[in-house]
Structure formats: C-alpha cells, structure tokens
C-alpha cells in the first residue's frame, strides 16, 4: 500500500510536468472530437494519430494515445444524447434514454450525468488498475510458452464469444486475422511466407493499416452518400445542472456501472461496447420502474456511460501487466508502445516505473480535463456535428492515408489499408464481426511462437497443455465458453449475445 502510494507520487511528478500535461490535454481534446464525430471511433483515431507521436518520447506518446481512448468514451455520449446517433459504438445504449431525456428538455442534465458518471468511473477504475496491474504482472512471471499459448487462445475465444451474433462467424474472423498475421518472415526459420516478392511484407502486415482499413475506411464506404446531418438539440449552459432527484437516481447506477465496466474491461472483447450493454440490462432489471427505460430513465444514461469509461481502464490491465491486448484498441495501443521501444508485460512496471506510474497518474489528470471539456464546452464540440458528411469524410480519408503511410513511410501499407477497407465493407454487409480480425493480426506471431516453443518443449506432445495447471485452467474456461455459445442452438432462445447484436443494429 505504502509502496503503491510512493509509486503514485512518482507518477504524479511525471504526469504534472508541463509536457505530459499538454499531451494529456491534446489527447483528451482529440479523443472527445473522435467520440463526437460519428464514424470515427477511438480505434481509427488512435491509429491515425500514431505517426504524430513519433517525435515524442514514449511517456508523452502513450499518455496522448490513452487520452484519445478514454476521451472518445466521454465524447461519444454527446451525439447519442443530442442527436440519437452514437458517436462511437459504446454509446449505442445511451441513445435510448439520453435522447429521450433531451426530448423532454433535460439534454443538459443528461450530458452532466453522463460526464460526471464517466468521471467517477474513470477515476475509480484507475485506482483499481493501479492496485491490480502490479500483482498480476508478478503472477505472469510464472508463465511459460504453454501458459501464454493458452492465454492468447482464451483471449481470442472470449472475444469471439463476447461479439454479438454468430460464434462460428466470429471464430472464422479470428482465424482470418491469425492467417493475415502469418504473412512475413517466419521468426524461427527466417522463411518468407506469403509475401510474393514484396519486400515490405517481410515484417508482416501491420495492425495500423488493418485497423484503419477495417474500421475507418469501411465506415466511410458504408456511410458514403449520406447528405445532411440530422438536427442537433443544443443545450444551454444553465440547463446543465441535474435536479436533486436526478443526482440521486444516478448514484447507484454509476457505482454499479463502474464495477461492472472494470470487470468486463479486463476480459478480452470489445469491452467498452459490451459493458454499456450489460450495464443497461442490469439497470433495467434492478429498477423499481423498468417501464421508464426507453422514455428517459436517468439510470439508462448513468449506468452505461460509467461502464464504458470504466472498461477502458480495465482493458489496460492485461495489456500493461501481461503484454496481451484484450481487444482491438488495446492491440493498437500495444503496437504504439512497441513503436516507441516499450515492451508491455510483466517486466514493464519494474523496468520503467516512470512510464507506468506516469501513465496511471495522467489518467487521473485526464479525467478532470475531460469533465471540464465535456460540460462547459459541450456547445463547441456540438458545432462539429453541423459539418456536412460530404465535407467530413474526404478529410477523414485524407487523414487515414496520411496516418497509415507515416507509420513506416510505406505505400504498401496504404495498399493494405485500401484492400482491408474493401474487405471490411463487404464483411459489414455480410454481418461479420471485424474486431477479431484485428486482434488476430496482433496475436498471431505471439501465438505461433508460444505453440511452437511448447511443442518443442514437450517433444511434440500436445498433452503439455493439460499437464500444467494454469494452462489447463485457461483452456478449460475457453472450452466452457464454446459450450455456452452452443446453448442457444440447443434451446432455440436468444441469449445476451444475440440481444447485443440486435441492439448494435438498432433493432432493440
């Protein structure tokens, strides 16, 4: 405890230095903009801004990119409440009651509840991250290749399970992503695989062009042809204060959303999206007036908004402590850290305490900045929504090309982005989840190395995965998830994953 507080003091000495403060602020502003703009999610935002961090030191870069991630969670609620358009996927559930509150003249109160809930959740979950990451990292030092293989496999299975909709489709996307990750030089033998003479593919297919293509370009292609944005409800500053009753109604949902979001955040999957859905369902179930949900229930705003913010901190736990990303956004963050010569994992906390604790402390500061940005300055961000989409998407497209090119100064990356954009467009039309593809690309080299090392250790016996307790437990959890996914096929009923898929499509 005392050691943690001492470490946190070290972190604040880093986070409160003017350059780190500046980059945390820039990250929060960009993140809020990314969250506000429909079609530009945090994944595309982080990928696009990655090249702009090349000139910065590792701490400044990571602090800024993390600011974009949790800033987007704050910003996403604005469009949901004022326009009934989720700025990013985690705000889908806020659309329902947030917009209903806005139509009743309580737009300001809904924004304030969302912002304060996000602040509380963001701050509390950073405390949990601070206490959980170091012991988890210490535990991970016991991991050998079989344990890492089982952990990575479990990560993919959980992501597939957590994705709404068909499990076979999600698993096929994970396999597709892993196959993409096989392109390039084989780490153990030096063979060129599936590169067809393209030298640039020797290093493999990068996660940034894949992520920007599948999420950014595919979104532009799907939304092309949209003419004018829908009308925006603009709240006045004096309307921002919720009533006493509204504060009271939001207190418990915020607390529950914080705990739920953090726990879901640790589990692999698109945590920020899933957590908001689960929180909404929990609040509706626990409410004494469930009939109010859908008609402006305060809990329907406070719960999901707290949960999606808390999930962002939770998602950093496995990334920082184990070096294993739990979803596509932490995967891009992991790639960004590697670009800056930082290797997340069990050794990070001991070897680079300034970076780790500076990052943690910057999240406290960032949450305060975001509270300030998202309440008094909400009108400023709302104006961005008035830009017609035909003017907006060419700019996003130009930034996508710029960002992807700049990572390696490689036109091949731009071609990969272009191809993945087309593939992502078709996958969306065919209702395939694209998040497992991104995670597959990142995990493929680690997974392959762990499997081959494990087999070499056991002289070719797969029984090694069943003879080590940690690996066996992890694989057993994965097998259990597969069985759970089969249950709706047997019982012919909708489980929560099917309902999530419907909610994301707007059918619920």
């Amino acid at each position, binding site marked *: 405890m005392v050691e943690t507080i001492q470490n946190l003091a070290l972190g604040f000495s880093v986070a409160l230095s003017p350059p780190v403060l500046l980059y945390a602020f820039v990250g929060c502003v960009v993140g809020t903009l990314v969250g506000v703009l429909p079609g530009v999610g945090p994944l595309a935002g982080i990928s696009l801004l990655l*090249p*702009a961090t*090349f*000139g910065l030191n590792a701490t400044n870069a990571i602090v800024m990119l993390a600011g974009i991630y949790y800033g987007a969670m704050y910003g996403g609620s604005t469009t949901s409440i004022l326009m009934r358009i989720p700025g990013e996927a985690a705000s889908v559930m806020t659309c329902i009651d947030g917009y209903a509150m806005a139509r009743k003249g309580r737009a300001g109160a809904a924004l304030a509840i969302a912002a304060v809930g996000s602040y509380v959740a963001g701050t509390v979950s950073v405390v949990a991250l601070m206490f959980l990451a170091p012991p988890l990292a210490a535990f991970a030092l016991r991991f050998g290749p079989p344990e890492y293989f089982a952990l990575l496999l479990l990560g993919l299975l959980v992501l597939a399970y957590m994705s709404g909709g*068909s499990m*076979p*489709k999600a*698993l*096929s996307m994970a*396999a*597709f992503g*892993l*196959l993409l990750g*096989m392109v390039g030089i*084989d780490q*153990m*033998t030096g*063979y060129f*695989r*599936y590169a067809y003479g393209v030298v640039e593919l020797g290093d493999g297919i990068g996660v940034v062009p894949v992520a920007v293509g599948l999420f950014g*370009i595919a979104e532009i*292609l*799907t*939304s*092309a*042809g949209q003419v004018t944005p829908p009308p925006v409800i603009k709240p006045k500053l004096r309307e921002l204060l919720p009533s006493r009753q509204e504060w009271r109604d939001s207190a418990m949902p915020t607390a529950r959303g914080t705990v739920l979001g953090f726990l879901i955040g640790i589990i692999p999957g698109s945590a920020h999206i899933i957590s908001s859905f689960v929180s909404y369902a929990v609040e509706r179930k626990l409410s004494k007036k469930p009939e109010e949900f859908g008609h402006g229930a305060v809990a329907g705003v406070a719960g999901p908004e707290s949960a999606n913010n808390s999930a962002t901190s939770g998602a950093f736990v496995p990334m920082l402590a184990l070096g294993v990303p739990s979803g596509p956004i932490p995967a891009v963050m992991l790639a960004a850290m590697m670009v800056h010569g930082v290797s997340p994992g069990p050794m990070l906390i001991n070897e680079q305490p300034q970076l780790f604790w500076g990052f943690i402390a910057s999240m406290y500061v960032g949450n305060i900045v975001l509270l300030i940005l998202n309440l008094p300055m909400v009108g400023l961000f709302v104006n961005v929504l008035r830009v017609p989409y*035909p*003017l907006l*998407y*060419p*700019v996003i*497209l*130009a*930034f996508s*090309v*710029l960002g992807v*090119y*700049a990572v390696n*100064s490689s*036109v091949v990356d*731009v*071609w990969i*982005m*272009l191809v993945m*954009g*087309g593939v992502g*467009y078709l*996958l969306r*039309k*065919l*209702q*395939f989840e694209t998040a497992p593809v991104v995670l597959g690309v990142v995990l493929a080299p680690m*997974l*392959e190395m762990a*499997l*081959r090392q494990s*087999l*070499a250790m056991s*002289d*070719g016996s797969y029984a090694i995965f069943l003879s080590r307790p940690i690996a066996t437990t992890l694989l057993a959890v994965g097998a259990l998830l597969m069985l759970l996914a089969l249950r709706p096929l047997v019982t012919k009923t909708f489980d929560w994953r099917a309902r999530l898929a419907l909610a994301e499509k707007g059918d619920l």
Partner: protein
Amino acid sequence: MTIDRVGGGALVLLALFVLFESRKLPYGNVQNPGPAYVPTLLAMLLLGFAAVVIVTGRGSAGVAAAGWGEWRHAVAILGCCAFMALALERVGYRLTMAASLLFLLGVVERRRLVTAVAFAVGFSGLSFYVFSTLLRVPLPRGAWGL
C-alpha cells in the same frame, strides 16, 4: 443466396488458397514445426468454421437485402484511395491530397468548384504544415519537391 453462404463460401476459398500456397513451405513435424505448420492448422480451422457458417446459414438474410445503395460512392472512394497510393511518392503529398480532395468534393459530391478548390488546396497545405513541419512526420515530396 444468403449472406452467410456467400461469406462462408468466400472463406472456404481463402482457406483452400492458403492450404495450396503452404505446400511451397516446409511443414516440419510435430516435434519441430516448420513455417507451414501453424498456417496449415489455421487454414483447416478456417475451413471448418466456414463450413459451419455455410451449413447454418440457410435462414440468414439474402445478399440483396444487405442494401447496396451506396456502392457507386464506395467504388469512387476506393478508386480515389488507389490513386493516392499510386501518386503519393511519385508526385508528393500535397499534390496528391489536393487532387484527391478536388475529385471527391467536385466530382463525387458535386460541390461548387470554388469551394472544392479552396478546400482541397487549403487542407493539403495546412495538413502538410502541421504534420511535416510542426510534428516532423516525414511526408513524401515527390519528383518535383512538392
């Protein structure tokens, strides 16, 4: 034809292609897996999942029902992206961006020519200044130093 069957069919073809291409690489054995070992394993898994998607995909929505109204826009945007990839290092960042934005705004979105030109030139110049000059991101200048 349903979306699941089309998607599953495409994945089956991809898996078969990977299996075919993996023949060129050493497979190794289970004690000492070669570079083709894991890709072959993955391609077989993909084949299996895709087969399940096809088999269970009878009741999914039809391909036509997916709504392809924006396909012309999508093709134009992808074409513009391809132009950017081809031109970026040859003619430089600023000229490529200006020409691409002009095409998207003037031709695809049918905005007024003055607006399109001003926007295209302004954005390409300003973004070059911010990223290349201020943030020192190396951007290509092309054969003419632009």
